[in-house]
């Protein structure tokens, strides 16, 4: 049963929140869409905590801000905000697509990108795109601010590099270069409210037909979404049109098995991941060809 002595705090400023965190051991609450499920399912979810700190009234971390060099997405930005943002759609299409693929309308209206990453499930849909776009997480505590690559931030399923006195306040994404492309694909068991069986986020920079940069990050394929560096190395610097998408698909599947070993789900994930890679490359080839 839930400890009835827990305190419920509500902050309206980050400064106020980090101060509360410095003095108390508090569980953070954003949109609550993972929080509430865990609270019901896990007996000891709030064991050891003095209370709950609700972040949902801190307006300063609900914004998407464009600077010269980068875009900053507040941790309390909802998936709905991301889907609706013209800026995100233009600069980071894969992120917008991943947010649009989350849950259902009511979930997207509540759930935040910060919560998605801090919850750190292998199937967290915005995680792959944030890694692919080389995003950094901004963490604040009463002692100051630090940043971390999103790819470093998530350590293991449901485990991140955040300290108990810290709040994730935003993500910083570099602005897309000339010739940047991105895409996100997701396979679920149904058309909505579907946990990702397997997904793929891709970000590429193409310069006169050559792959100058490529980040390939599958979701639900490995314990923690990670760039598939072998496949990336294979195609980086090559002429895009000369790449055989099918071969890349197969190599990606091998890379996955290299990380996870054969698991119960491998017989499905192997061909499915190969499909996603194959399609991503093929679509990229077509898109680039169309753009002349």
């Amino acid at each position: 049963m839930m400890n009835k002595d827990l305190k419920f705090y509500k902050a309206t400023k980050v400064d106020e929140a980090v101060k509360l965190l410095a003095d108390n051991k508090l569980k953070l609450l954003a949109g609550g869409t993972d929080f509430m499920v865990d609270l019901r399912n896990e007996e000891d979810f709030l064991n050891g905590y003095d209370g709950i700190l609700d972040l949902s009234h801190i307006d300063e971390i609900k914004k998407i801000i464009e600077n010269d060099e980068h875009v900053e997405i507040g941790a309390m930005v909802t998936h709905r905000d991301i889907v609706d943002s013209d800026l995100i759609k233009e600069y980071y299409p894969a992120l917008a697509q991943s947010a649009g693929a989350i849950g259902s309308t009511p979930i997207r209206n509540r759930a935040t990108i910060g919560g998605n990453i801090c919850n750190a499930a292998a199937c967290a849909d915005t995680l792959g795109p944030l890694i692919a776009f080389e995003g950094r997480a901004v963490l604040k505590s009463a002692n100051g601010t630090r940043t971390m690559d999103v790819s470093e931030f998530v350590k293991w399923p449901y485990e991140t590099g955040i300290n108990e006195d810290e709040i994730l306040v935003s993500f910083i994404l570099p602005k897309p270069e000339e010739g940047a492309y991105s895409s996100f694909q997701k396979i679920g068991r149904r058309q909505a409210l579907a946990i990702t069986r397997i997904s793929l986020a891709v970000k590429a920079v193409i310069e006169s037909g050559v792959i100058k940069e490529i980040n390939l990050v599958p979701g639900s394929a490995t314990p923690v979404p990670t760039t598939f560096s072998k496949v990336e190395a294979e195609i980086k610097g090559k002429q895009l049109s000369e790449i055989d998408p099918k071969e890349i698909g197969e190599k990606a599947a091998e890379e996955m098995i290299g990380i996870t070993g054969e698991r119960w789900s491998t017989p499905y994930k192997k061909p499915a991941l190969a499909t996603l890679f194959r399609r991503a490359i093929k679509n990229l080839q077509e898109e680039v060809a169309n753009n002349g």
Partner: protein
Amino acid sequence: MNDLKQVNKSKKRVDAKAKVTGKAKFGADLKFANMLYGKVVRTKYPYAKIKNVDISKAEAYPGVEVVMTAKDIPNNTFGVIIQNQRVLAEDEAIYIGDGIVMLAAESKEAAEEAAKLVEIEYEELKGIHDPLESRKPDAQLVMEGTDSNQVVHHPLRKGDVETGFAEADLILEREYSTHYIEHAYLEPEAVTVVPNERQTLVSVYGSVQNPYATRDAVARVLEADLSQVRIIQDNMGGSFGGKDENISSMAARAAVMALETDRPVQMVNSREESIIESYKRHPYNLKYKVGATKEGKLTAMEIEAVADSGAYACQTPFVTWRSVVQATGPYEVPNVKTDTYGFYTNNPYTGAMRGYGSPPTCFAQESLMDELAEELGMKPDQLREKNMYRQGSHTASNQKLDNHTVSLQEVLDKAKESINYDKKYEEYSKEQTGEKKRGIGLAISYRGVSLGAEAIDTTGGIVAVQKDGSIILYCGLAENGQGLRTVFSQVVGEELGVNLDRITYMEADTSVAPESGSTVASRSTFMGGNALKKAAKNVKETMIEFAKEEYGVEGEIIFKDNALYTDSGKKIEDFSKVASDAFHSGVFLSSYGWYKAPKISWDEETGQGRPYFTYVYGCQIAEVEVDTGTGQVKVLNMAAAHDVGKAINPANVRGQIYGGVVMAVGHALMEDLGFSDGFINHTNFDEYLIPTAKDIPDIDAIIVENPDPAGPYGAKSIGEPTVELGGAAINNAIALATGERHYDLPLNLERVLIGRDLSREG
């Protein structure tokens, strides 16, 4: 008949407003003074000896009023057909949902905490989890006091299959399997039992699908008279066949505790408790052998169907019986040998679920017909047209279909036309270049209306005209969300010329309404409609007689628009005025109507006879898109044509068709209990997936009407036929799209991409 005012109209549901405004009360909304909250402690293992139960800590927990075990129950067994379901397990737990201890406390929280303090010592045993294992002669026995695990065997023999197969140019043998299906009603089970209320020992309120079945069970468990047990149905948040035995056991438990404490006891399941304890649709293993001439004429069919009954008999004998009658599909087959079995296992018990024994056989047999057509080089619809029942055909049970319109051709034609079948079939049969491939597949069926030879088939109703002309209806059949209140009100409103706002259909109350059988088998419109129509007719005759005398009118009297008219159209009086005058003259304005279904017959040894008095016919055609790179299947369109005899309420009929199609999409593509070795791993809707709004295809619901001579206004059935066709139609569409046939459900990502299912559990 042409001038219908209420019937055959899409009248607004009489209970719609209460439901959409939240005024309608459901089982868990009820509150009684001094009420306790009940809770059940269930087994940890699917099969285990219960070595010791220690309830002392639970009893001592603050707020706990009572903790009980099987020993405290007057009579621990009940059942609709065979009485071997236990209210609580005593010496051993035989499936994962078995309850062992029950308790009641001042608050839900106290009940939950106390439940955790119950200490049970188990000896885990190796159970049987496959009916193909449990059927073996040397298999260990699931049920005490039996000499084999067989629950039932229904044979059917017609002609001689050996001769039939000898005449065949082509013989196909295929095996199919279908899986557990959870009813997934939105509202989990809820019951409140009030002791010593209103002259009875116990009143039971709750989400009860079949009040009389629940009354039988509670009375049996309490060893009380039926008259002392009163069941009052609340609004239902869905049932689909699923709130029968599990509600009976919940009601029995609450009743025992209510009497023990002399306080009302409420029990409400969480979703997890509901999915773990409640019965499911039977999984089937089906072996089919079919022979045909090269012209496509069926010569013989041999079928073995094995259903998993789980730990209790529940409704296995009847569910499997329906499978027998539909196993050969709606086809003329001169030689048939069918053996349908049910076996006990240590799995979740299985019982009634919308479709009742037909969805598994329809899936197998209509998938087989498609493959046969392919092998013969025929179009799927042509093979069916060559063999399907027509007026005067004889069924596998040798019943001649001549007392109603056999409308397979009509439903097939209408569905085909709606979805543009011929053109799409041709197009999708050609080589498709992209990775997303389309297919179209059809399935047809015939289905017996009402119970058939399962049991006595009668229903009663009361029409009570009040002195202000408003009308109260009682019937033992239950509004489960299907729209029965509205349909019954329409039938009575039509008969008495009264608008629906003056008619109230009372909730089923076993101490008031006549026992009417269960609200199952798509029988209610037919049976209850006939009973209430009769009752309304009786009242009408009384009113005619009275009006003639009172107002000095002669000739025919017409009841319409809340008034009585002469045959020349002159208004005599308002209906309410006639009712008032009659009442004040001492006329009795209420009547019972009793309806007994037409005669049927069945030979248990040979499966020959007249299993049902009439049939409905349906055709569904699915158009799908298969992503051959990922295994994702999208059902794009579904045409569903169903002959309902007469649609009392066309909007309701369409609603049933939409709902049935969506359910079948779920069963076919995604629903999965995550079942392994007796355990259920998917215990909530995050893992037990059912279709979302986005998974629903465009559905063209086509109502076909060929009035049945015995039906009220010609009406027959619609609830269940809608859910039995989708599985095969989708399977056939996927086969056309991908060129690969599947024999097992569900057709999930893994099956479609790599040809087999995978499970975490190994």
